[in-house]
């Protein structure tokens, strides 16, 4: 029977295969299954990672061969005021975006979970933006933010007698305006995840709490939120990483002056893109990607640690 199952080959190999124990055969199968993936992960993930670290120590610019220059790229980066502006912007997206979107998503999920009348329709309304293309919707929002008579939001404001707002043309308002677009795009996903988390809480917990005479607010604080912690941790980390890597919206909403006005909306990923693929300053860009990697790593670890120690 076993020989039927073996890959057909020369009689010698087939004979050798037949003499292997069942256990050894399974080990051979396992490594056969893993062969292509191991080549892929080694060549497309691990090697490029080390290469990025190496390139960050060179002055490679596509034209001349890369020469080792030590930490010069990092020194240059940390001395660059634009980098510190970009650094602040990147964290502004994170520090404003993550709490606002999570609180909104939780409140909506909490009430939506209890709604039965037209539940499916309302859920679909919130979920729909998640299915759109960020690059396309960035242009719709950009149009929304235009001054009168073009922009919808300013049109609404002037209809109720509020002064026109510059939105994308202002160094103060542009970043929050872009962030709203990103929050809008990700909210549906977070709502669905929160609802899944809420439904995973056994009903008996609520019944017991009610018998004990706990009010709705106490139930929320003592049962719902603590039991929802794994879901919250997942969403905090997931959405933080998303905001730290924001690119599509910023790129498309500021094409006439990428990251503008005056770099006020430029996140790190856009700086990387410009350094690498507009200036072809590849070594310098690689150093910026290493900084991004470090930030993502630190932020993820801090959040996991903070949320683990608090209940």
């Amino acid at each position, binding site marked *: 029977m076993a020989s039927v199952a073996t890959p057909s080959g020369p009689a010698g190999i087939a004979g050798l295969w037949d003499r292997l124990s069942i256990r050894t055969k399974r080990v051979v199968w396992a490594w056969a299954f893993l062969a292509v993936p191991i080549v892929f992960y080694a060549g*497309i993930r691990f090697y490029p990672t080390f290469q*990025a670290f190496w390139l960050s120590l060179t002055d490679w610019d596509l034209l001349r061969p890369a020469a080792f220059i030590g930490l010069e790229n990092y020194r240059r980066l940390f001395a660059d005021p634009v980098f510190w502006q970009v650094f602040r912007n990147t964290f502004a997206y994170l520090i404003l975006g993550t709490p606002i979107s999570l609180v909104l998503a939780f409140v909506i999920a909490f009430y939506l979970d209890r709604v039965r009348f037209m539940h499916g329709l309302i859920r679909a309304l919130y979920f729909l933006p998640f299915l759109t293309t960020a*690059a396309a919707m960035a242009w719709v929002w950009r149009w929304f933010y235009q001054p009168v008579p073009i922009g919808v939001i300013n049109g609404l404001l002037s209809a109720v007698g509020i002064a026109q707002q510059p939105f994308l043309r202002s160094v103060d308002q542009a970043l929050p305006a872009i962030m709203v677009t990103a929050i809008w795009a990700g909210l549906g996903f977070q709502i669905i995840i929160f609802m899944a988390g809420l439904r995973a809480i056994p009903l008996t917990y609520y019944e017991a709490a009610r018998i004990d005479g706990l009010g709705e607010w106490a139930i929320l604080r003592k049962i719902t939120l603590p039991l929802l912690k794994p879901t919250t941790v997942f969403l905090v980390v997931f959405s933080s990483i998303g905001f730290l890597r924001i690119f599509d919206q910023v790129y498309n909403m500021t094409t006439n002056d990428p990251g503008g006005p005056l770099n006020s909306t430029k996140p790190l990923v856009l700086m990387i*893109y410009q350094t690498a693929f507009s200036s072809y300053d590849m070594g310098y860009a690689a150093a910026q990607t290493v900084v991004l990697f470090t930030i993502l790593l630190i932020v993820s670890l801090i959040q996991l640690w903070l949320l683990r120690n608090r209940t």
Partner: protein
Amino acid sequence: MTSIAASTSELAANRRDIRPGRIVAWTLLMIGGIVMVTPLIYMFSTSLKSAGQVYDLRLIPADPTLDNYIRVLADGRFVRWFLNSTLVATAVTLSNVFFDSLVGYTLAKFEFRGRYLVFLAILSTLMIPTEMLVIPWYLMSSQLGWLDTYWGIMFPGMMTAFGTFLMKQFFETVPDDFLEAARVDGLNEFTIWWKIAMPMVTPAISALAIFTFLGNWTAFFWPLIVTTSRELYTLPVGLSSFAVEQSIQWEMIMTGAALATIPTLIVFLALQRYIVRGVMLAGLKG
């Protein structure tokens, strides 16, 4: 799914007459939901307006016309970009369904030395952001002639650690008895995986397929870098270049954005139930 459905109705029954404020809550939720889809509605509405009517911010176009769509579609660019995106997203999705499942299955169901090491190595790639890899990928692509090719757009995503992890979690729930019975019947290991184990995790496969397809269909950063000729743009990259070119002709830009959005909306509205379930599955297991 049935247990969730049952628990919802119980939950609702339990809470039916607790809150007098539920009508307020319902109304607020509905208003919020309508606000959420307003950008989409305005996009479609404006795409049906002529250039002269764009400044008229009424939601229902006074004189709806499909002229913008005819003009945008006339030169075939959008059709090409649509086909490019479909090809890329489909190929990457098939590859992920095959390889992520195969690796997840191997790590879940085979005993061999180094298994844990392989798992950790794959999982550790989750920590590496794509942005860090694009410069080496670009270098690699330029040396191997992959720049501006379909393969160049696709290769970085052919397998993912997320998909592998998701599939491993699900294959662990498949009872060994089934696989052992198939082994006794003389099926080889590949057939056991493909014919016995795979059909037992179809919800996970559909979740993985939906995520991978959506992720690649909307992908912007890497396709923007690796493609230089218009014929190879994916839909998001093509739309972006189209919008820049149109400058302030907002009705044309909205038409382009609508064309980039309509196909996914149709497909995904039809599959909404599965997507929501997939998001929930992935969120809970991940």
